[in-house]
């Protein structure tokens, strides 16, 4: 149990990259990119966990209470929202690419070779 979350984060990362490599549809590829992205949050939050600790919000806790690490939560929290907007930007590129190329299958895009 002491390494399961870390290994799971590695698995999610690699499975996301597998999806990217073998994708036949660019929207599916962007979906796989969000899967890869969530692996970083799983690792970050798993690193901050402290056995027996509670959430680092002191509105109802005594100041000396045993809490988990708030720093990794701050990093993960902003990244989730920002990641969604970056995904939106990539989806916007896919929408326009579909208009100009007529397809979203990466195998059929033949413009930039050599």
């Amino acid at each position, binding site marked *: 149990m002491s390494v399961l979350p870390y290994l799971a*984060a590695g698995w999610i*990362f690699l499975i996301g*990259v597998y999806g*990217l*490599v*073998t*994708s036949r549809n*660019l929207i599916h*590829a*962007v979906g796989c*990119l969000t899967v*890869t*992205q969530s*692996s*970083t949050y799983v*690792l*970050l939050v798993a*690193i901050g966990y402290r056995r027996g600790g509670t959430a680092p919000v002191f509105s109802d806790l005594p100041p000396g209470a045993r809490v988990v690490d708030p*720093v*990794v939560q701050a*990093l993960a929290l902003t*990244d989730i929202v*920002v990641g969604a907007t*970056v995904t939106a*930007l*990539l989806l916007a*590129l*896919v929408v*326009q*690419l579909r208009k*100009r*190329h007529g397809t979203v299958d*990466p*195998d059929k*895009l*033949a*413009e*930039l*070779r*050599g």
Partner: protein
Amino acid sequence: MAAGELLPLVVAVPLLGSAVLVAAGRRLTRIAADALGAAFAAGTVALCVFALIGVLEGPAVAWAGGWRPKDGLGVGIALVGDPLGVGLAALASVVTVAAFVYSWRYLEEPPPRHAGGFPALLLLFQAGMCGFTLTGDLFNAFVFFELMSVVAYALTGYRVEEPRPLQGALAFGIVNSLGGYCMLLGIALLYARTGELGMAQIGRALGTGEPDALVLAAFVLVMTGLLIKAAAVPFHFWLPDAHAVAPTPVCMVLSGVMVELGVYGAARVYWTVFAGPGGVSHSSCTRTLLVIGVATAVLGAAMCWQQRHLKRLLAFSTIGHVGLFLIGVAVLTPEGVSGTALYVLGHAGAKAALFACVGILLARYGSVDEYELYGRGRELRLVGVLFGVGALALAGVPPFGTGLGKAVAEEAAGQQAPWLPAVFVLVSAVTGGAVLRAGLRVFGGAGPRPPAEKADGEPETSGAEEEPETGDRLGRVPGTMLAVPVALLAGALAVGVLPGFAAAVGAAGDHFADHTGYLGTVLGSGSALSHVSASPHWTAAGVVLDLVSTALAIGCAALAVWRPGRTGHPGASGWWTPIRRMQSGHIGDYVAWALAGVALLAVLTVPGMLL
């Protein structure tokens, strides 16, 4: 106002400018929006220069939010005004101002309600680059890395009416996002081990104890993100696709500065975080960066010679030069760092000027294809001269900054391995020669007319019948589009000849390549400069090597133009086609190569460190 307090303002002013532009962009005419954007960018240049003057004596540290560490332990983010960092921020700002002035009359009329869009994106780009060079915190560097990337995706795909920019921007987006996630995984591992996020604090925490698999994995993952940004082999595939299609002002900033920031980031992270005893040993890091650098230089130069699409030709020459920068950094000596810094400064001026000239060709003739433009550039005499001078500067002709930087970096690399200067000479000769060949054919109409149509079956991207980015073809070349390349080449020349300049960059190199000094500056136990090296200067051997590479470049170009049979394009040698086919434009390929690159980095670094 101490230099330290200026550092956060260098990032804040462009952000404010972009917010003002987006808010007011709906009512501003295009000229007003561009003028406002250029004003904010120029203001940032002034701030950078003031900060640079302030930090020349010694690096200044600013703690964001006033969170100074108490007896070495703190919670805040440090902004470190290292002379090299602030210098690169100034370079990024200057090239952004050049892009602003160039795009004054260059870009197609934007839709009525979005006049502020393009200038605001350029200002955000400048803020991202300045933040990346100034930050002393690893997670903050990742944040500005992402900011630079996001803005670059939008700017690369700006011309949404064309099919190619969208494919190039999407490939650029997916590969660089993957690089960002690798870097974040590496930062998470370092945080788990050291419980710190600042570069100096992590470096101090890694100073004790033995290097183990976690440090190796963190080094490989963080370096992957930075080398993807630096377009090193095998992560380089996105760069030619992105550069061939981005609007020309964006190409100037991408090739001139952003790619070099990847090399700066890799060097900065190694020197501050991993250079301690508990980190990655000098020999392992040198071996890794040397192998990657030489491969990048050779592949970049070879592919550059094969291209007929002028922007892709310049993109591959950038990859070749990134390889040379990586070699200069890989020797891990202050002379190597200051030589590479001079080379980067000179290269930024020359490469941005060359892209500006290609932009003029695209605007005037609606094509960037070397064969189709054969002899049509004769009437643009000044542009032809600028293109030739830029090509020679790429080849490292003295007294240009590229020549001085190449000479110093060669000499530093020569101490590491005797054959390295030969790589410098060959790569700069081939890239300079390729650009010179294109210039001779386009502006001089020299040699037999090459066949216009593409050799079928050959994986090749021709630059023919491109939509000019100025909407319709320009009759007369506007003054701003000519002034920018002239100013940039003058800057590249100044880097080589200004008397005190090279000495200042030498001192900056000493500060940069000083692990204990950096830790002392940031964590308060200030320590004197451990090693003062001789300031870089023109040496006889350096000048000779520069002249050899220039002569070689001219020779290659002449041979290719007047005897196309042997080395010119028609009937390009068959054995090189599989390498060209690897540049396939398929996103799945690029991601697979990126992951293989991570494995390559690990395999190169592990011997001598763990096994």
